[in-house]
């Protein structure tokens, strides 16, 4: 058997339990004596609460308790914001789990009912009488920033939670000397993440011992424990958070939510297990949303197509309250990436974080980077049109040349490694770009509108050095941890602090151990998601689990190998310096038959009958790995669409991509991440958008009204890659979880704009529903 598992498309070790229906997600769990909680949510986007009368609900059958803000007084601290951007005037408004005297979005929790059954809990919600005094509401971040807008929080004048600025290079001069200045007004519409598993919490407080166990649909159980301890006052050593199977997150399961704390409070007060599981409409109303930017962007360039400056103002909707990591998304993860794959000498951005009477906004797959990539890449395409150049050529003229160990950009970041031209060249070749352009020209002659849309991107992920985290106001660390434990039989347990929920690290991490230590991946069990039996870690988001946690694991495996080598040398009565290692065997240099296998060493280390002097028993090691830099995956994508000018229908015909996430541990898993990511981004371009009416009612309040990509509207995604290792990661790997989403929205956007360009259409707001496309074509005809 070859033990070189790194790079093999082996089957996922998670799957057997998932395909038989036997895996347990939070809502699949039941405990003896369990009660059910239901949240009463505000039907108004903005209102004062005059009074709440819960007496009828308390009388209802099966109801055990009804709690309102008064019951949480002194029991629940405010929901915290954990990304306190420095130098941005950030103000954190009070965010109570149970609304006190004001509700600020449709979905704000006013009361909770706890009952013996879920039906009884929901029935009783209707019996609670809340007297509201409605107030004017505002839902668009641009409007909420106007002086006469309704104000959400007393201590947040102008609804402005922060104003973050970025300046690099001489932007004034760049624009003063530009041959070409282009302007775009872009609306990055609000999106609903739609993890297919809605959120749920099961809390079990044992009053006798003061211990609280929480099963939750979280992406980061250790953060949830940290935050829940701060909010509920249950000490961290008494608080155990378990993320069982988690059905996707995409950012929406990063935050710790009011409903989670309320469920914990209920269990604490009642001393019985309490489960709360949200409905899909509740998920739409109250689980965090993504994007919601209004962007004004200008690009300066020479007549040769060299980009000389970029200037932007962004109104970033935060929703009614600041969610856990929200302030960092439109700033650090967005503004700092505005140089993209290009050497742009001057960049300036102002980002206004604005409260609106809407669901709080958080990270959503890509988180800030799709919005940055979009700005740049749609302007690069405009520049190509303006100058009569092919979009691939304009990109070529501006790319940062290939580099393998650090390249600084004007925003202050230092990219680790990249070969952007290489990715684009491969894409053009694989897609048959020149042919496609010919087909497009022919089609146009026949009155058919094909469009080609390119997007090249680089993203920042693998968050990140903890020192940087501190400097940018992130209220936590960003390292990851791993423990590797060899049992006497040579089987291995790996315990990690990160918490994958679909990304396949139970498999890829077993592959890392396999390649580093020569055991079969089938002999490695990866344990995650339980704060009581895994080391602290900061969680799975920002494409960081393999990029940081994988590094922690590789370093740990190497510690194990070093120790095993010492033991093997001792057993073979050789000097450590004379030992060699290959494929799970330690042998005396030059005599491979004088060898000890890692399994033999593991047995000896565990029984410890004959250990070298000063070497501890056991074969176990751990690492807390703090990366020296972020990682910067990149790539080039192409979308091919046809637009029907009669109906406005957009048909996505082909999607080809080249992504570079460094060496791939499991290409099949990488491919799956790319597929999913691409389709999510396509969704934003073509179908998805959360819509509020003027009063702040969410019109897209159910799956029927919010169009998630479905199988029949998509082509096969053609996935290719290049391999540029990260110079600082022990395995050279970068992240791949978000890449697809970062590139695909603007690739499809550019394709549609390319298709309709001959019809004189300049701009269409996303999503490209047939009606919008048709109207834009009609308007252009009339103009």
């Amino acid at each position, binding site marked *: 058997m070859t033990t070189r598992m790194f790079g093999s498309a082996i*089957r*996922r070790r*998670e*799957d*057997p339990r*998932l*395909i*038989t*229906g*036997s*895996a*347990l*997600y939070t*809502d*699949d769990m*039941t405990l003896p004596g369990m009660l059910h909680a239901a949240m009463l949510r505000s039907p108004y986007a903005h209102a004062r609460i005059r009074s709440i009368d819960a007496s009828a609900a308390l009388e209802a*059958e099966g109801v055990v308790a009804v709690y309102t803000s008064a019951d949480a007084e002194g029991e629940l601290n405010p929901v915290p914001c954990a990304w306190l951007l420095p130098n941005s005037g950030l103000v954190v408004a009070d965010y109570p789990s149970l609304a006190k005297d004001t509700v600020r979005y449709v979905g704000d929790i006013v009361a909770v009912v706890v009952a013996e059954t879920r*039906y009884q809990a929901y029935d009783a919600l209707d019996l609670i009488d809340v007297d509201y005094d409605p107030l004017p509401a505002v839902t668009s971040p641009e409007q909420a920033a106007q002086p006469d807008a309704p104000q959400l929080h007393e201590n947040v004048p102008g609804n402005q939670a922060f104003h973050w600025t970025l300046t690099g290079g001489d932007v004034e001069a760049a624009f003063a000397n530009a041959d070409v200045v282009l302007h775009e007004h872009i609306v990055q519409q609000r999106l609903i*993440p*739609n*993890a*297919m*598993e*809605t959120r749920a919490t099961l809390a079990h407080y044992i009053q006798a011992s003061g211990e609280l166990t929480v099963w939750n649909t979280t992406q980061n159980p250790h953060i949830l424990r940290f935050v829940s301890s701060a909010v509920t006052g249950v000490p961290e050593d008494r608080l155990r958070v378990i993320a069982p*199977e*988690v*059905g*996707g997150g*995409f950012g929406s399961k990063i935050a710790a939510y009011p409903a989670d704390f309320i469920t914990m409070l209920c269990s604490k007060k009642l001393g019985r297990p309490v489960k709360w599981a949200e*409905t*899909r409409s509740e998920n739409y109303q109250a689980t965090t949303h993504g994007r919601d930017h209004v962007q004004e962007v200008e690009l300066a360039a020479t007549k040769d197509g060299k980009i000389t400056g970029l200037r932007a103002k962004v109104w970033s909707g935060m929703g009614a309250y600041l969610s856990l990591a929200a302030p960092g998304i439109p700033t650090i993860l967005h503004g700092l990436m505005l140089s993209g794959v290009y050497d742009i000498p001057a960049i300036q951005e102002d980002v206004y974080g604005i409260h609106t009477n809407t669901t709080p906004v958080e990270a959503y797959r890509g988180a800030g980077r799709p919005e940055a990539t979009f700005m740049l890449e749609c302007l690069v395409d405009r520049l190509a049109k303006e100058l009569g150049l092919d979009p691939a050529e304009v990109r070529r003229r501006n790319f940062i040349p290939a580099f393998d160990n650090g390249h600084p950009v004007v925003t202050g970041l230092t990219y680790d490694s990249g070969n952007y031209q290489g990715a684009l060249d491969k894409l053009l070749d694989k897609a048959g770009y020149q042919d496609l352009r010919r087909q497009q020209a022919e089609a146009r002659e026949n009155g058919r509108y094909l469009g080609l849309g390119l997007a090249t991107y680089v993203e920042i992920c693998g968050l990140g050095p903890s020192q940087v985290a501190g400097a940018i106001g992130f209220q936590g660390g960003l390292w990851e941890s791993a423990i590797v434990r060899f049992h006497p039989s040579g089987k291995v347990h790996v315990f990690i602090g990160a918490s994958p*929920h*679909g*990304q*396949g690290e139970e498999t890829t991490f077993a592959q890392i151990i396999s390649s580093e230590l020569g055991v079969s991946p089938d002999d490695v069990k990866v344990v995650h998601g339980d704060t009581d039996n895994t080391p602290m870690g900061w969680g799975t988001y920002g494409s960081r689990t393999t990029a940081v946690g994988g590094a922690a694991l590789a370093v740990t495996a190497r510690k194990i190998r070093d120790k095993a080598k010492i033991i093997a040398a001792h057993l073979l009565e050789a000097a450590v310096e004379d030992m060699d290692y290959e494929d799970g065997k330690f042998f005396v240099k030059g005599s491979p038959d004088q060898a000890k296998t890692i399994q033999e060493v593991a047995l000896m280390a565990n029984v410890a009958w004959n250990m070298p002097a000063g070497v501890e028993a056991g074969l176990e090691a751990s690492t807390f790995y703090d990366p020296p830099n972020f990682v910067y995956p990149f790539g080039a994508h192409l979308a091919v669409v046809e637009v029907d000018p009669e109906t406005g229908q957009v048909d996505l015909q082909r999607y080809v991509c080249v992504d570079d996430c460094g060496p791939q541990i499991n290409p*099949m*898993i990488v*491919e*799956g*991440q790319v*597929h*999913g*990511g*691409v*389709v*999510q981004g396509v969704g934003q371009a073509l179908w998805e958008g959360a819509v509020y009416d003027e009063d702040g009612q969410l019109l897209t309040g*159910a*799956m*029927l009204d919010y169009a*998630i*990509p*479905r*199988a*029949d*509207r*998509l082509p*096969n*995604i053609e996935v290719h890659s290049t391999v540029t290792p990260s110079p600082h990661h022990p395995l050279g790997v970068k992240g791949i979880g978000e890449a*697809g989403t970062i590139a695909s929205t603007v690739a499809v956007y550019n394709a549609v704009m390319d298709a309709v360009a001959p019809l004189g259409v300049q701009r269409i707001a996303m999503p490209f529903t047939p009606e919008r496309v048709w109207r834009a074509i009609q308007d252009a005809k009339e103009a």
Partner: protein
Amino acid sequence: MMPKKSYVQAVINGESREFLCEPRQTLLEVLREELGLTGAKEGCGDGNCGACVVIQDGRLVCSCLELAVESAGTEITTVEGVAGRQELHPLQQCFLEDAALQCGICTPGFLVSAKALLDKNPDPSEPEIRLWLANNLCRCTGYDKIVRAVEHAAERMRQEA
């Protein structure tokens, strides 16, 4: 006052099962809460995601949209029963081989749905597969690998037939 419960008998995954349920309880709730079959999931509760689908008397139905009392006397297959006596159904086998899942929450629905398709049409074209599976939502996979897995399973089942 406690609403009156109804007695229901149905054949579920080949076994005769009896349960009591409230008239308003959905089949999905009864499967999950009364019968301990948590494979079917509630993704939306309104017939839009396919996470809850089961095969009932040969038809694919959203168990979130059917009242449990309506299931009296029917034969139902859930994900827990798709394999029948085999260890794994060829669809499950191909979902494994093709990595047609990530977080897995949608997978029971896709498996049941794809089984209903192959029961009817052992040799579906790719567009037919995509159209059929358009009733099921998956947010993780982008569908490509699911479509591949269904194609492969169909092929395998035709060979074995």
